[in-house]
């Protein structure tokens, strides 16, 4: 097998590959990549370099991990998972990403494709109007600084209190949409200024809002799907992919600068400047964690306001209330975040960057309705293919600090994608295949073409076979909104 690395990579199982600590000076633990042979061979050299750099970080436990959707990132690879000891380990903004609590939300409906198809164009136009997208987009919620601090502290709960959601929504969001430990005093004025006008906006890049279909023939676990409100029968669902917008990006940028200086003080050296870190228990580490939680809560609030707008759009187009249309949240889960969790090694700060928490059944942290089936995991594919709903497993708790993949992973540069297809051409092609696209930027649309990504089904198959998540349903797009 030809790999994009000269490092020693050993097969553990058909879906697990290990790079021993002898592969690089300073590695404290082995690095493990979850992938089929085919996916491993397609991974860029950055994955191998970066996952082994992460294995050198102070306090890392067991393994530095990379999921099958892994590709080159800043410092950490995208798809990276690393658990550090809370007492002796570090926290690294590069292990979370610039878009703190970038994540996925899935909303069900009781509408069927046949109900929606005749009004799909009207629905997509209304969604495009109600959910701002693209460069620097601003939302309809006007906040004072004090109110924005409330958003940082309360997350999605703030939105529900303001009427932008239903009380039951909170049970269907990871951490009930509000992570403890947020402290707005640890957030810069710059971050506040960047984010205060952006609540309820999608952003651009690979962020999107999609109207999708859950068909009977693409449901893999009927019982679990039903427990999550997915009935199949060409049911319409809505998926949202976005994060904490400029607010989170600025928090990450601010603390990378802080950590660069802190590392010198704590005598920490790293293999890559973007792995800047500080001891988790240090003042800098704790300040970042408190600010990161502010950004994480704002991202939950962002997706909650977007949900409110989606419900309004459906209600306007179909002439029924969102309640009548059965528009409950299926789940909302982060894939760029660090959390303190307990494993056999003790309390660990688990970094997930382009990786999703996938707790198995029985975990006390899960809301009651998910304790039997495991944590729902939402994985977004490219806008042309499909996305998946999965659930966490006991095996994930044993092997991957309760973590799994998050999406499909790019294989082609943005510039190359733009050279291969024009935005207008792609829009037309997608429409011929029954997918209506509304995009702010035609160049941005071309960059997100399906051929620029790995095949998500292959990636999902890898985690399913590895046993760290089980697939529940595939969801196919019929309408897409892009920034």
């Amino acid at each position, binding site marked *: 097998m030809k790999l994009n690395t000269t490092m020693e990579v050993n097969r553990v199982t058909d879906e697990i590959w290990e790079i021993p600590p002898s592969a690089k000076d300073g590695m404290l633990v082995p690095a493990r990549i979850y992938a089929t042979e085919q996916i491993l061979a397609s991974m860029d050299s950055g994955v191998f370099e970066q996952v082994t750099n992460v294995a050198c970080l102070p306090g890392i436990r067991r393994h530095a991990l990379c999921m099958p959707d892994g590709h080159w990132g800043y*410092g950490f690879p*995208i798809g990276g998972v690393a658990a550090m000891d809370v007492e002796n380990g570090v926290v690294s903004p590069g292990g979370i990403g610039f878009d703190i609590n970038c994540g996925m939300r899935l909303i069900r409906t009781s509408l069927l494709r046949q109900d929606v198809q005749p009004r799909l164009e009207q629905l997509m136009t209304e969604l495009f109007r109600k959910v701002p997208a693209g*460069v620097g987009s601003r939302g309809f919620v006007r906040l004072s600084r004090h109110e924005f601090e409330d958003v940082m502290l309360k997350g999605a709960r703030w939105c529900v209190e303001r009427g932008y959601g239903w009380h039951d929504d909170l049970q269907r969001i990871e951490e009930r949409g509000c992570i403890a430990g947020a402290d707005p005093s640890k957030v810069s004025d710059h971050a506040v200024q960047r984010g205060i*006008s952006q609540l309820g906006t999608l952003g651009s*890049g690979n962020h999107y809002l999609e109207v999708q279909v859950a068909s009977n023939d693409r449901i893999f676990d009927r019982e679990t799907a039903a427990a999550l409100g997915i009935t199949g029968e060409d049911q319409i669902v809505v998926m949202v992919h976005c994060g904490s917008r400029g607010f989170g990006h*600025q928090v990450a940028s601010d603390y990378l600068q802080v950590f660069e200086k802190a590392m010198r003080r704590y005598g920490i050296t790293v293999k890559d400047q973007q792995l800047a870190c500080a001891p988790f228990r240090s003042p800098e580490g704790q300040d970042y964690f408190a600010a990161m939680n502010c950004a994480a809560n704002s991202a939950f609030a962002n997706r909650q306001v977007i949900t409110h707008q989606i419900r309004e759009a459906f209600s306007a187009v179909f002439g029924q209330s969102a309640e009548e249309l059965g528009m409950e949240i299926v789940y909302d889960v982060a894939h760029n975040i660090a959390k303190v969790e307990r494993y056999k090694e003790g309390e660990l700060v688990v970094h997930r960057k382009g990786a999703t928490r996938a707790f198995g059944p029985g975990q006390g942290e899960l809301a009651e309705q998910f304790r039997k089936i495991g944590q729902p995991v939402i994985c977004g594919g490219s806008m042309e293919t499909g996305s998946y709903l999965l659930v966490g497993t006991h095996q994930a708790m044993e092997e991957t600090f309760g973590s799994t993949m998050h999406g499909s992973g790019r294989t082609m540069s943005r510039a190359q994608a733009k050279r291969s297809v024009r935005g207008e051409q792609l829009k037309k092609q997608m429409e011929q295949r029954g997918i209506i696209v509304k995009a702010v930027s035609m160049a941005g649309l071309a960059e997100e073409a399906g051929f620029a990504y790995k095949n998500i089904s292959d990636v999902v198959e890898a985690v399913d076979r590895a046993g760290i998540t089980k697939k529940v349903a595939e969801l196919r797009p019929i309408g897409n909104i892009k920034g």
Partner: protein
Amino acid sequence: MTKSFKILEEVALADTAFEAFGDSPTELFLAAGQAVIETMANPKTVQARWERVIERTDPELAGLLFDWLSEIVFLKDAEGVVFREAKAVVTEDRSHGGWTLRGTLTGEPIDPGRHDLHNDVKAVTKHLYEVRKEGNRWIARVVLDI
């Protein structure tokens, strides 16, 4: 005067990396600023109805450039604008042993109906970040998170 930049495709698969060039620090800052504003929107579609002057000093030219580009990204969100032009004058401040920037950004509030919008830059990163001088030419390598 030669001010220019080129996109480095092999460096950033999911993001945008570029190398900017100039015969002087000022030209380097002009080229790098242009690369950042063009990543966000086509400047030809943007009018100069908004202006902001930015003055900074830094002991290191690399630090000053990083601040300049980060400020452009910040103002895009904080002011809700895209940019027509990023003018810059960079001088070496020999008395204090550092560098001084006087930059002027022009642009206008974002209007998706009129502006040819591209990507929403999240951050200027330190990944592979470098400012160097080769002969009489200044070169900067920058990776933007998209």
